């Protein structure tokens, strides 16, 4: 598979009077042509910032700096001037967001909003462009596209709005679609439909998709490869089957076990990762995950682990081999269920 997008050492820094923050730290990954890559992380892990940095959507100034490389089919994106970047956005890379109703203009009909995106390509006559709008709406699974084109965002459901946004994103026939939590605001039954749509578009158009999500289930069911982010760093990446089959980072393992699932054996206690995600302003020294990690030792508290390759996976963990082999990620609730999943201080408090 040829690589469409290559990101190398992407670092986003934000400086203010009080803080010197690294929102994204040295992230490197690739997305192949026609590949769906899921970027998974909890809130504040830096996944949206990464996507925005690649698309040049961050306001870069003396406070916000973006370092590293992001090459789209060999062309460096981070060095482009705003005018050139605008040509890339929409035509080569498109993005859709979490809140579909908020992303559409409430006083413009859905068809007119798609037409706006079609017109930016400046090709074809007006009637041809109108036909293209209907085609696009139909291709994202909107039934009765002629009628829907005349309606306004408030008249249709959230799922329909998300489909319309996907149609807008597809207007320029992009090679890469970045979908930032596209189904988080939707109901599960509608989520399944939208995810299927993304997979179908990938197959039909050989389009690559970067799917940003907090849901390991969505990643498992949709992606070819998975990137796991924690506290601004990529902690693990690899093919979906490997990531879920034998995670090499304790955080990945913890996330997999923490997801409540409908088909798991039922027990009173869920497996929980103790503590919470640190804020960007007070990330611990060494490995950012070490205060919550069951495998952490002295080295983890002092030295930041670099990414290492283990088979098909790349993990940033000093004890990745042990994490993979010992399967400690299948954190079990301790005897009586009292101790596991709590920080020592919380345990003492009980």
């Amino acid at each position, binding site marked *: 598979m040829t690589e469409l997008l290559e990101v190398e050492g992407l670092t986003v820094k934000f400086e203010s009077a009080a803080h010197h923050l690294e929102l994204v730290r040295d992230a490197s990954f690739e997305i192949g042509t026609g590949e769906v890559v899921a970027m998974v992380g*909890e*809130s504040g892990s830096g996944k949206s910032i990464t996507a925005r940095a690649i698309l040049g959507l961050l306001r870069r100034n003396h406070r916000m700096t973006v370092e590293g490389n992001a090459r789209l089919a060999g062309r460096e994106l981070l060095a482009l001037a705003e005018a050139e970047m605008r040509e890339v956005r929409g035509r080569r890379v498109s993005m859709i967001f979490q809140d579909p109703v908020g992303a559409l203009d409430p006083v413009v009909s859905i068809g007119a909003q798609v037409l706006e995106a079609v017109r930016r390509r400046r090709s074809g006559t007006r009637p041809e462009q109108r036909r293209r709008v209907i085609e696009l709406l139909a291709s994202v699974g909107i039934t009765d596209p002629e009628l829907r084109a005349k309606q306004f965002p408030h008249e249709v*459901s959230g*799922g*329909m709005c998300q489909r319309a946004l996907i149609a807008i994103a597809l207007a320029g026939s992009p090679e890469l679609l970045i979908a930032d939590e596209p189904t988080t605001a939707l*109901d*599960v*039954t*509608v*989520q*399944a*439909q939208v*995810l*299927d749509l993304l997979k179908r578009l990938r197959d039909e158009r050989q389009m690559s998709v970067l799917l940003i999500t*907090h*849901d*390991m*289930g*969505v*990643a*498992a*069911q*949709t992606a070819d490869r998975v990137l796991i982010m924690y506290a601004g760093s990529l902690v693990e990446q690899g093919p*979906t*089957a490997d990531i*879920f089959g034998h995670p090499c980072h304790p955080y990945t393992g*913890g*996330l*997999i076990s*923490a*997801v*409540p*699932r*409908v*088909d*798991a054996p*039922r*027990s*009173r*206690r*869920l*497996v*929980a*990762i*103790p503590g*919470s*995600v640190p804020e960007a302003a007070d990330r611990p020294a060494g490995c950012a995950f070490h205060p*919550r990690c069951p495998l952490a030792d002295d080295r983890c508290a002092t030295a930041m682990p670099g990414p290492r390759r283990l088979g098909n996976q790349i993990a940033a963990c000093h004890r990745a081999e042990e994490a993979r082999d010992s399967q400690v990620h299948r954190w079990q609730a301790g005897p009586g*269920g009292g101790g596991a*999943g*709590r920080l020592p*201080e*919380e345990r003492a*408090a*009980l």
Partner: protein
Amino acid sequence: MPPNQAAPLAREEDRHGGQREGLRDGPREARAQRDGALLEVWDLVCHFKLRRKWWKGGPAPVVRAVDGVSLSVGRQETYALVGESGCGKSTLGRLILRLERPTSGAVRFEGRDWLALRGDHLRQARREVQAIFQDPLGALDPRRTVGKSVEEALDAHNLAKGQAARRRVAELLESVGLRPALAARYPHELSGGQRQRVTVARAIAGGPKFIVADEAVSALDVSVQAQVINLLADLQESLGVSYLFISHGLATVRHMADRVGVMYLGRLVEEAPAEELFSAPAHPYTKALLSAAPAPDPTTASKGVELRGEVPSAASLPSGCRFRTRCPKAKEICREAEPVLLAVAKGRSVACHFPES
């Protein structure tokens, strides 16, 4: 009940007989039978009249948010109410909390007419019915330390004042797994999980018997969600409280619920003990909800019951069965007659003309 329902009843009992005597369910069920239900909801209806648009003729449209729901929750039981947005699950929760007035129907709490309570009686009784909502940041006063917020709950019920109240706050925070020193912090200084623990501490301050938890963990990060679910389970063991656990997803309720009710457009479409609902869903909607939840495991492909379209508006319901517009099994009769919630086995009922057996 039609006579043909009797046969499957006996068969179902045979099949699940062994399971029922399991350690988990046995004593609980016995207790529920001995004490009777803690909360009973009878045919509760809540309609909202919309304003008639002058450019459209006809009567003012009515949103049938809750349209005839009956359920009961036993002592120390967790009843999970599941459904997609707009199904009326939150309205039902708010009706039980008396934040909304029902159009008709009855709610009995410990045998008393819960909806008739007024004044001091109501204030007294409110101690026993508490709520936890989705957004803890919105539920806490931003200008007040979280300790003060919890203390206010004690004050409202005249439970403790001054030094004694502060001691009690420390105890409450400890019981939800927070260091008592956090009482001096403001909500914005805490993480999402810690804030939700504070609202839990506040809810249990008055020693409630019943807690409505409306999407209590939905806004939390996955790694923290599990902690709060475990906390709620622990509190149930130690305080003997019952939960009405409202959620949009079946996965989150799996570990908590004793019984599950699935709602669709204002009605219960299926009700069953959790174990049975997850292993053998009877209503096509329940089945679809189960298969739509993506499993965090690439080797289990979804089981393929996929729904078309989205939930219709509660202001213009389809004729007959409310689910028929999205149902893969819909036939002519579903258009004509609305199926009634019928018992198909002990503790199990389903509203469908063609239930799975």
